[in-house]
């Protein structure tokens, strides 16, 4: 679990964010933010509260429309023009800060909804779960350790189990880009370690952006770090590089 196991970017640009500005009532949540993430990369984004981390994710997933600037996925898909569902179907997945599973559905049904497949209203009305789908759900249940809880409503799970279910939902859905918003918030040290291992494992065949506060966790991922401050990039580089960066120390680590 160190830098050597980190994934290898291919050099192709997957996510291209250029000059994005978002303001809420005059407050600039993002200020000319520019960011490039390569295919296969694992990227961590840190920054103090209000630095624009969550807004950045909102822009990429289509929840918030930027006032200006451009956001492209795979060079051609203009994310500023698509809605959440269309962006999700391009292959961009998001995990929220608080675990959000569907509490009134069973664990199995939660995974079923996340399973790759047609999202059309008509198809979901008549579609049936295939043998292969069954097998993939069973495999995911096994991997996140919730096989026993399959028939339970997700609302009956513990906090940690919900986090795992949510990661399972990301796992089962083939996504090229995952955005994880503070994936270890509220976890015990042991759970944090396991989550780091799972993320490194997931990162082997997809691109992941992790937004995190926990510096120990960021260090354990050993990935390239982008530091946000007041809505734009303050520094970017290895963990060591940003930790020794004087401005970063001043605004973030120094506190």
């Amino acid at each position: 679990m160190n830098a050597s196991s980190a994934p290898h970017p291919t050099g192709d640009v997957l996510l291209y964010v250029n000059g994005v500005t978002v303001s809420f009532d005059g407050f600039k949540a993002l200020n000319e933010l520019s960011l490039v993430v390569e295919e296969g990369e694992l990227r961590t984004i840190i920054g103090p509260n209000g630095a624009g981390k969550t807004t950045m994710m909102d822009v990429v997933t289509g929840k918030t429309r930027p006032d200006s600037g451009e956001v492209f996925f795979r060079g051609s898909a203009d994310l500023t023009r698509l809605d959440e569902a269309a962006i999700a179907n391009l292959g961009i997945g998001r995990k929220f800060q608080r675990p959000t599973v569907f509490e009134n559905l069973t664990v199995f049904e939660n995974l079923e909804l996340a399973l790759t497949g047609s999202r059309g209203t008509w198809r979901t009305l008549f579609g049936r779960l295939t043998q292969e789908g069954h097998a993939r759900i069973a495999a995911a249940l096994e991997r996140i350790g919730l096989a026993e809880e399959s028939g339970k409503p997700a609302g009956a799970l513990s906090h940690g189990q919900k986090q795992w279910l949510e990661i399972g939902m990301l796992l089962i859905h083939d996504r090229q880009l995952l955005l994880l918003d503070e994936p270890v918030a509220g976890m015990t040290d042991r759970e944090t370690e396991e989550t780091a291992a799972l993320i490194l494992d997931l990162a082997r065949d997809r691109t992941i952006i992790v937004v995190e506060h926990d510096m120990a966790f960021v260090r354990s991922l050993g990935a390239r770090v982008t530091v946000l401050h007041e809505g734009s990039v303050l520094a970017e580089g290895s963990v060591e590089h940003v930790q020794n960066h004087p401005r970063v120390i001043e605004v973030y680590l120094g506190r």
Partner: protein
Amino acid sequence: MSAGSAVGERNAWSLRFWVGFAVCAVVLVVLVPVLNRAVEPNSPVAVPDYLVPLLGKYLCYAILALSLDLVWGYAGILSLGHGAFFALGGYCMGMYLMRQIGTRGVYGNPLLPDFMVFLQYKELPWFWWGFDHFLYAAALVMLVPGVFALIFGWLAFRSRVTGVYLSIITQAMTYALWLAFFRNDMGFGGNNGLTDFKDIIGFDLHRPTTRLGLYLASAVGLGIAYLLCRFITNSKLGRVLLALRDTESRVRFLGYSVTNAKLFVFTVSAVLAGIAGALYVPQVGIINPSEFSPANSIEIAIWVSVGGRGTLVGAILGAGLVNLAKTWLTSAAPEIWLFILGGLFILTTLVFPRGIVGIFRQLRWTRPRAQSPAAPPLAVGGSGAAKEQA
């Protein structure tokens, strides 16, 4: 509705379900007609003729309750305007029945219904064209509420109007229609509405056998509506709906179109409500603008919540029981009925959020053998969007 097999899938179409469905169908479709037609009229088990249209009316209300439960109980869309779809379907049927009167009206005009002669119409308005054909009217019974709901829903869901705001604009919708249909120059009979019907596809509406036929049509309609709702709610789409009822934004990030899913159930639901209205009108013999009254739509929500929203059987039970109580109390003690109705709503909301069906389920689950999951928490309709702003 078992708690789920080993892998967490629910089997909605088990043998047990079909047996239960068949028993209910036999009671409604075979037993009631037999007790009405084949039993001596003074026998204690006989169903007297006057009761048949009353039962038919309850069945129409049950279809209406199902339609609201589909959107409210399963998708969190609390529509307080479903009475409007019911009335629109009812008006389409009423227009057909008016055209069937022909020269038997007071003025004996072969083309124009009485109220038009009275209001000095020179010719039949264009929107009345074709209503002398039953199939045309039957198609419009579904199309008018369906298209209306499609347009209304598209505007509302696309702009992400949810929760209490949606409830308010549906109230406004039915209120606007209420006022519009009151106007004489709308061409729908104004305040008096449409009435004095004579016959339907050649059968005299005043004959007991015709009334029994309408009752049977309502029973079959309820059966089909129930199966349709059960199919929808047990499909993957049904699970998408339950999911978006609880956390709408999360469903979007999974790649489902929340707008389309909502639009689909809302339209299906409006069509069902329209059919209910069309079955209702020939049995009660009148349709007038009071069917659009906002209070009517709220009453439907009370039926569903008393029976147990999010359970289809609950909607049917609620519609039946509340209306039974209404029929009895509005003649026995009319002054207290509205208090009882209001009290019921408060009671179910505060004490029995899952309604009558919820009470029975809880009783079953508190028995020792139960290893079933805990009762799912009460879902507040469409509040998911409230916590969006970071």
